[in-house]
């Protein structure tokens, strides 16, 4: 890996900017299925109209500009323009060299290898470009697939916040995972 190795282009997908005219429609379709939102965190899932999503993306772009603590990308296949997912490195605390990470692949785009390819790009961006020392991910305990996924990349469970989530009539824990820069290097591709 060197200066000529693209930060944004993987083997299957690329990290791109937001297309404000087209992407909100795709995101609106995904929001009709609550699964995606429920797998991420405890924020209540709700369907969003594309106009609402557009406004949110606009205010996020503004926040990115003003606060310098987030990088947000839309994931697309190498040869196609369609949106297949998004990912963000956020709550960057520069003096501590730490940040949180979140990623989602559209319900119809899963199990094609896009997530793993994009995740590798995000990790390189976090450690080789932003020079972070650690990355955190939090996931509900019922997101078995997500937990397996982050563990495969070397993340280890650090915190189990008990009964933080109340869904489908029962309480669930919220798990926090962490990956240190030193642990990433050994898993380097």
């Amino acid at each position, binding site marked *: 890996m060197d200066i000529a190795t693209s930060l944004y282009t993987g083997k299957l997908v690329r990290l791109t900017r937001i297309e404000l005219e087209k992407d909100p429609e795709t995101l609106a379709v995904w929001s009709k299925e609550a699964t995606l939102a429920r797998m991420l965190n405890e924020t209540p899932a709700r369907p969003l109209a594309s106009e609402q999503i557009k406004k949110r993306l606009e205010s996020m772009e503004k926040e990115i500009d003003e606060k310098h603590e987030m990088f947000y990308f839309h994931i697309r296949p190498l040869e196609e323009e369609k949106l297949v997912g998004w990912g963000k490195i956020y709550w960057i605390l520069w003096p501590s060299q730490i940040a949180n990470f979140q990623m989602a692949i559209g319900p119809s785009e899963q199990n094609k290898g896009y997530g793993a390819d994009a995740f590798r790009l995000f990790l390189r961006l976090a450690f080789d470009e932003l020079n972070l020392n*650690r990355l955190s991910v939090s996931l509900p305990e019922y997101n078995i697939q997500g937990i397996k996924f982050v563990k495969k990349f070397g993340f280890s469970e650090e915190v189990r*916040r008990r009964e933080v989530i109340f869904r489908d009539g029962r309480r669930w824990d919220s798990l*926090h995972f962490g990956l240190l820069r030193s642990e990433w290097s050994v898993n380097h591709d």
Partner: protein
Amino acid sequence: MINNIFHGKLVRLSAENPETYAEHFSRWWHDSEYGRLLDLAPGALFSPKRVKEWLEKELEKDPPEMWLFGIRALEDDKLIGFVDLSGATPHGDTFVGIGIGERAYWGKGYGTEAMKLVLRFAFAELGLHRVSLDVFEYNPRGVKSYEKAGFRMEGRVREMILRDGQRSDVFFMGVLREDWLKQFGAEYQLESNIS
């Protein structure tokens, strides 16, 4: 039914005007050890005016997004610190933050009692399911105090802080309502059936 839920033996939880908070917060933050025990982000030393403007907006919100209390020592009615609950989720979880700005009152149980009072407020008045906090590895006094108030360790986030050339971990702690009731229900004359 007990009514005086904001009073303990050493301290009471108080309501203060934005001006009063502002003057104290601004002064306390000039004590860098206080700021570094409280916050991951570097302390910006805001003027009382700036703090006041922020608080005026915050305290106007109804219902509040942040339940902020002053901590007053009963012996001299001095404002010695603050405690707040913020970011409550629809699932009944919230984070608590606490700071004793007046050094003369450190290590004497004032903060612990204020935390116990705010937990009683969270469980007996707000009806929350759990309360969360994070505390830094280099703050063992804080950890001990929170354990006394009922918190349990839930994990350790490695190397979250870089200060004085050294990386430190951050502990996450939490207290569930049912555990809290078992431990303190009798002390506060609460029926365990409120859960």
